[in-house]
């Protein structure tokens, strides 16, 4: 069936301000990078079609503006961004994958991962939180002043049921393609794991027209 091949995946990217989320998205979609930093207000959306195994997958990637860091809220509350922190629960609902990004030169952004993960699980409330597909990206590996070691990041991922971990550079396009491929594949696994809803609902019961909808003489009844 043709439609069987048509899949849309909802992906949410989270992480502290200036860890490079927009840059990663931009590198992935447009193969472009700029050093200039501008904070996202509100949210970014991105669409990308990818082939995963034999299926054409459309990725709908949303990146809400980070807002206050959920762990160090007091610091961020002063930045004026808090007014944009919340896009509401519905924004996260029904996500197929969540990408957590930190900056390998910023230990604070790494520490925040726990907070972002919890925040997502609270907002999105997926049915099976323990096995919800997260992918972790340590960005800016092109920089010299690295402060979070690969081992430390891997350990954290391991402690969360073995989350896939990639070290990326949006600037030099290192691992970006591979990371998003894994994101798509993991999200797809989540999406396609669905029983077919083909059982018939119960037969309608005729209750003698006691319900309002069925009683005659109401408005717009053609009888």
């Amino acid at each position, binding site marked *: 069936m043709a439609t069987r091949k048509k899949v849309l995946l909802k992906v949410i990217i989270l992480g502290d301000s200036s860890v490079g989320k927009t840059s990663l998205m931009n590198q992935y979609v447009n193969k472009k990078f700029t050093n200039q930093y501008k904070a996202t207000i509100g949210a970014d*959306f991105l669409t990308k079609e990818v082939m995963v195994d034999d299926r054409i997958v459309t990725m709908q990637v949303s990146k809400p503006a980070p807002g206050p860091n959920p762990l160090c809220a007091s610091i961020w509350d002063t930045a004026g961004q808090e007014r944009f922190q919340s896009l509401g629960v519905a924004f996260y609902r*029904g996500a197929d994958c969540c990408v957590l990004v930190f900056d390998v030169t910023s230990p604070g952004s790494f520490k925040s991962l726990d907070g972002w993960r919890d925040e997502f699980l609270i907002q999105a409330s997926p049915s099976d939180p323990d096995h919800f597909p997260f992918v972790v990206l340590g960005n800016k590996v092109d920089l010299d002043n690295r402060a979070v070691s690969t081992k430390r990041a891997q350990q954290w991922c391991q402690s969360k049921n073995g989350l896939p971990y990639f070290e990326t550079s949006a600037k030099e396009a290192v691992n970006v393609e591979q990371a998003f491929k894994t994101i798509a594949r993991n999200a797809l696994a989540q999406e396609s794991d669905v029983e077919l809803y083909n059982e018939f609902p119960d037969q309608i019961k005729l209750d003698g027209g006691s319900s309002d909808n069925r009683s005659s003489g109401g408005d717009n009844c053609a009888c």
Partner: protein
Amino acid sequence: MVNKIGYDMEETQETDTTTLISDINDIAIQDPVVSKSVTENEPVPSSSEQGSSYEILFDQLKEKNKHIFVLSTAGKPIYTRFGNENQMASLFGLMIALVSVTQDSNDTLQSICCGQTRIVFLNKDPLILVGVSQSSEPYDQIKKQLTYVYNNIISTLTLTQLKKIFHNRTNFDLRRLMSGSERLIDKLITFTENDPGFLLDSISCLQMPSSSRDKITQTILTQCSKIKNLVFGLLIAQKHVISIVRMKKYSLHVSDIHLILNLINSTESFKTAESWTPICLPTFDSSGYMHAHISYLAEDCQACLVLLTIDHNLFFTLSDAKRKITEKMRCNDCLHAINEAIIRQPISLARANITGLRHLLYKNKNRSQHWCPPFTSPYNTDELQQNLMSVYCSLISQINFPGRTLKVIFQQLTAETMLAWATEDVELYMTFEPLVSKECATNAVTKLTQWMKKEEDSLFIFNIPMF
């Protein structure tokens, strides 16, 4: 493609949520100039190819006057009237963000106005429907169209099923279950744009002498009354209803009949084979399926018989009943009468012989049935007819505005003079030549009412028997 809610800016800059909302709106739908300048100002995502694909998409969307989008509450696209919903995944993301932001402040987003463009949101958890109209249609009108589209989705899935699916998986891609029914939604939207029945909440009947109609109805009733769990029987010719029979205590709602008419008129294959299809009638009972036996009476009589039951094992019984109905109708000349009525020119308004009267809509409120005579000169083109329908639409929404008891509206427009006239039993919308006086128009009402007394037996169905 990157769509922005809000815009990129220096971290220190002050801004507030109101501008956020209005900008979203500009960027999303309304104003390409604004979106362009915003794109130019943001160094990070702006690359020429991204800007251009973004602009191409919106240019294409702007060419169409009316858009309808359906998405899940997770923001996954389900349906778009124009274009490929996959390419618009970002636009759908934007829609869900707008809905979500408003929900977060315990509010509901109903509509956004920008210039001539109106964006209407209908939140029917687990679905969200969005209508975008550039032709200044009233809010209620667009909302009703969205409700029709929603009902059509319910009619293929049932509400119970829909809720269950999204309860189990909020991330479900509903397009999987919708394949094939997009076409029905396309047709239904066209119906809501062109058909006076949608505006008036009424059905149109095939004109025929009431004696012939009674004979047809009686023939169907005789067969149907014997069958347990058969609830409704309908005989349809194209867009018009010929006859209805029903089980005691149950009645068919107009909007459900519209869905049935749309299904039949959009499905060619019903003409070649008798069909057995589950259909949920949302107003009758959104929780489960009715089962419809659908078949055209005979090769030489293109009227479609629809028998609706709650029992999914009834196909052969209904098939047998249909055969008998056709046989009987052939014997008692009913098939012939139907054919004649289908071929016959619809009653022209000229027969009423009222000076200056060009066109009208007449609704029998008690029956929820209407009569719309064929358009005549000067309404010779689709565009002119569409314009007149918009005038009717505006009058109808004024007459039916909740809480208002407006009975008469007289309007002299540049191209025509309009009179809307509402009584307890009738709604009448008349189109006159431009310079017709108020007095002349009210006289026409009297004259037409007298004429209708003679003709209404053939224009409307008065006998809807129960079994």
